[in-house]
């Protein structure tokens, strides 16, 4: 279980306790947190669950797998701290993780 903090583009924060084994994307969707669309349902094929992770957390996350960066190319305003939240698996280590949502998911 980890507490994940989702921050909307306008600064509004949402905290959710998310079970291990789910993804950061699922944590948002199941708790009705706005800003993560996840059109494809988590199959890494749409780039609408894009989040930014600040430096301190970015390096602690499991590394990106093949294909994630390719998909991020298509996200809205990606940068070097972008991740697809459907590819970040929750574990106790992620307790307190803060993810920032882009202005929109297109």
């Amino acid at each position, binding site marked *: 279980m980890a507490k994940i903090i989702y921050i909307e583009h306008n600064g509004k924060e949402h905290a959710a306790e998310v079970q291990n084994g789910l993804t950061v994307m699922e944590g948002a969707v199941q708790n009705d947190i706005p800003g993560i669309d996840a*059109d494809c349902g988590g*199959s890494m094929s749409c780039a609408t669950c894009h989040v930014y992770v600040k430096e301190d957390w970015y390096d602690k996350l499991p590394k990106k797998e093949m294909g994630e*960066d390719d998909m991020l*190319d*298509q996200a809205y*305003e990606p*940068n070097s701290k972008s991740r697809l939240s459907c590819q970040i698996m929750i574990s106790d280590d992620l307790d307190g993780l803060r993810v920032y949502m882009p202005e929109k998911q297109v």
Partner: protein
Amino acid sequence: MTKTDVVIIGAGPTGLFCAHQLGIIGLKCEIVDNLDKIGGQCIELYPDKPIYDIPAVPECTGEELTNNLIKQIKPFKFNFHLNDRVQKLKKVNDNWIITTTNRKEFSAPNVVIAGGVGSFEPRKFPTKSAEKFDGTSVLYSIKDKTIFKDKSVAIFGGGDSALDWAIELSNTSKVSLIHRRDEFRGAPASVQKIKELSEKNIINLFTKYSIKDVKGNGSLEEVEIKSEEGESKILKADYVLGFFGLIMQLGPIVEWGLNLDKKAIPVNTENFETNKKGIFAIGDICTYPGKLKLILSGFHEGALAARGCFKYARPNEKYRFEFTTASNTIKDRLGVK
């Protein structure tokens, strides 16, 4: 105007299997899809990715699944209207008049929306200023490449479309290729070619840059790009091309007076009808308590929606349940002995 029993919006697996079920119970349908091919997300997003949760099919790709579904509905000879999108629905007496972008018209008592998460449209630049030039000098697809001859063209993207067009247009235009990182997802041979062209100064390559602004008085003159560190550069450009893949948009569906819950259409679970009589929604686009976005759920929803359609298409007949194994009527419809 084509008269039919059902118009299906969306030729993905759910729409295709619903068509099959309509054929089995003796109804006719017309299938409309915005893409230029049959298969929906299975074909557009993951044609080569294996799917492991189709009942009785341990493993198949999106393409194989699509091909089998097409084969399964072949006996019914239904018409597909590809590259077209349903734009308007209007109720006239007991029928819906359905109008498409290509001005085709259908009249049917039933519409089944199997539209996935909407229709696929190109992803656009985030910059507001690009909207002003959208369709004239800011483009997301190429119809006529001769317009770029002897012009400056700035191409954004790192996939095959961006690379292929950069290579192709570099023969006759001054091409800049801009990508947000220094790795490309296009075919290795194309990436190699781009590097060669860049070394020979035939293509201006800018990696780790993205678009900041497009400028021009009347016509487009330049494009400003920025690095993540905030450094910006100005490039001369007559055309700006963006290749960022496709995004799914609900599009005109939101204008049909249907109840919406986020990007989904609430339905009842008895026959998957929406709040509008004769309009059904199945597959990823529908929602109800317990909804699973699985292909197999879409099949179930399509089978029940088909029976729901029967009621309006044959108001004076009673629907009779039959098994395909036992019914001679169904075997006739399938053209088997």
